[in-house]
């Protein structure tokens, strides 16, 4: 219906002009996104060092990944660990901040800006900043831990603490989710709360019975985007730890990057990329199926 109306409304010349105006994007997409993605399928079945022509080796890269590369498994484990903690923590903290900043108080916009700011700091700058936060001598975190009388760990220098450290760092960006939750919260009609209040529902019940259910579509979106993003965690480890100590922060994409650009095993790296794609796909599908049981779209 809609489509037909648009077709009638636009003359032939207009359609062509429109497509022409959009063509830089189409050309860019085909040349720099679609084409590389499609060729990486082919490369994943080849031995390809970037400089010579790719050489067909069938599924050898995939076999090597599962049977010959212990670092692959370690990187997968590290990444799962990171996703498992950073995503739920990020969502709950983002939500918490949003609930607090949903209040009607003076100059609320200033507070919101303050919490949102970290999520627009470029990740490279953020990583360098956080390397200082984790400094075992004068890092703010170290001093904070010591102020309450505990001994601070060596953070990024200790294989047991390196991953938790990067997870803590990821929570710094929780303000990015906050904005989205705030939008979701604003969408909940005030009348629901008023009615509940009249029925004698307390703050917790109102949150549990009104806010949370009506926020589930937003939470669902954040969950899926969070998982997709966290599986691709790279920059922090690349800049702050280079995967160490003892491969404790060797994340999947860092291992992939090294194979591609340090070892020049572009075929293998392409295969790794497709395996990661499959993993993320599986998680997204599971989420999608599971969402039926907890996501409510009955708002409008």
């Amino acid at each position: 219906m809609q489509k037909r109306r648009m077709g009638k409304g636009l003359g032939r010349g207009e359609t062509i002009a429109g497509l022409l105006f959009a063509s830089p994007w189409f050309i860019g997409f085909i040349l720099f996104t679609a084409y590389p993605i499609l060729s990486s399928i082919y490369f994943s079945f080849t031995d390809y060092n970037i400089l010579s022509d790719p050489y067909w080796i069938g599924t050898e890269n995939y076999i090597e990944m599962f049977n010959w590369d212990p670092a692959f498994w370690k990187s997968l484990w590290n990444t799962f660990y990171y996703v498992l903690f950073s995503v739920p923590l990020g969502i709950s903290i983002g939500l918490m901040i949003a609930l607090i900043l949903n209040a009607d108080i003076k100059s609320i916009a200033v507070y919101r800006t303050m919490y949102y700011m970290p999520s627009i700091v470029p990740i490279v700058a953020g990583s360098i900043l956080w390397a200082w936060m984790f400094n075992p001598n004068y890092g703010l975190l170290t001093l904070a831990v010591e102020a309450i009388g505990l001994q601070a760990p060596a953070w990024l220098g200790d294989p047991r603490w390196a991953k938790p450290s990067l997870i803590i760092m990821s929570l710094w960006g929780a303000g990015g989710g906050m904005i989205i939750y705030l939008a979701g919260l604003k969408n909940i009609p005030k009348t629901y709360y008023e009615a509940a209040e009249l029925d004698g529902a307390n703050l917790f019940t109102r949150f549990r019975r009104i806010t949370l259910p009506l926020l589930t579509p937003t939470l669902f979106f954040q969950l899926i985007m969070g998982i997709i993003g966290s599986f691709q965690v790279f920059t922090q480890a690349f800049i702050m730890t280079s995967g160490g100590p003892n491969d404790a922060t060797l994340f999947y994409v860092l291992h992939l990057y090294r194979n591609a650009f340090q070892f020049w095993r572009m075929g293998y790296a392409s295969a790794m990329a497709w395996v990661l794609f499959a993993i993320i796909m599986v998680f997204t599908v599971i989420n999608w199926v599971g969402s039926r049981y907890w996501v409510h779209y009955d708002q409008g």
Partner: protein
Amino acid sequence: MKKRAGLLLAIVALMTLLCVVPIQAKTQVIVWGLNPLQVGSGNKEMIDAFNESHPDIELVPQSTPGTNGYATQDVAKLLAAIASGNPPDVTWLDRFTAAQFASRGALMAIDNYVEMQGFDVNNYYDYTINELRFNGQIWGLPWDTDTRPMYWNKEVFREVGLDPEAPPKTWDDLMLYSEKITRVDENGKFQRIGYIPGYGNTWLYLYGYANGAQFLSEDGRTALLNEPELVEALEYVVSFYESLGGTEKVAAYQSTFQGETNDPFLTGQVGMLVTVNNATQGYARYNPDLDYGSTLPPAPAGKPQTTWSGGWSYAIPRGAKHPAEAFEVIRWLTTEGIKVKEAGAAAYTLQRGSQYHIPFPAAYQPSNDYLVDKYVHAIDNDVIKNAVLGGLNAIEHSKARPVSPVGEVLWVELARANDRAIYGEMSPKQALDYAQRVVQRELDKFWRQFDREN
């Protein structure tokens, strides 16, 4: 599609050139990895001197965005430039990766130019030029060489009753001396450590070479990572950490180390260390009165003391537009240029208020002799002079990393094996078995392709 993208890029590049560069008679040689803006480096002086002395060639240092301005250590950029057929004429290259580049046809062999000019490459220190040989050809010219001597703090030696003029020569002595120097407070926290195997710049290459390990067979086709010599070396490293109370404990202490004035060697937090020779620049600047010495790192009893070196080079990528002129650039930079650069750097050192300028050793022997005469022998502080000479002396006993088309894999897997062993995840033998398996497989893959194509 690739060609079309290349064409597009070429057109854009051409247009940019037409807009920016007026037509010139001089041949422009584009150089990556040489930053004229680096304060106190002498790079600008060197570039200017080249352009003044060469009426027909202009050396053009070019920024490579996203890589800290001029560095090409981000090899991704260089790889892409070479693969797309639009590389610089000259690139700065970490020498141990040269074989990896050369073996994939990413570089131009310079043998023709060497012959044509009658240029004697034997004037470069052997291991520096040998690191650039692969498949019977030369793929670049070496720029500098570091060495890894052992430094020991004589004041600390005196304090614990060790002879300050007799540094440890054997692995056993090293551990013994270290135990004597190490101090722990009442809570069991380190106040001072004699020696930390992984602190400074050591890597498994240091301990492996000291124990006679080879890492790679002569023909470069077989990895020798789980041979007894290397396993023993790693066992020594692990036992050293155990004697100190475990890697975690040492790492926690190490993570409190600071730099510059508070360098742990200057503060006496570490009594002995093996690190690259340019550490003396910092020591001379931040504590010119420190009483210390430098010598070759210890070896197992009965084996010759040795060390290892790395360094950089200038190479000509495949597809360079002006290879003949590029060769003149790299020849001049590595022979004459390095002297001009050091003069510029020295002027800056003095202007900054430091007393001593310590040059970085050149790979080209006559230039290095010149630098040593001019700068090192001029140092009026015997302690510093001898420490610098100790580092230079190590050149004679030094080895380079094995030349291998899979040099990066080898490097990473050795570091990985080391970590796995010192953190107790695996036994040294097990960790090296793993490394052997991964590296050998990579070697097999490389040589399979190499043999197919040649």
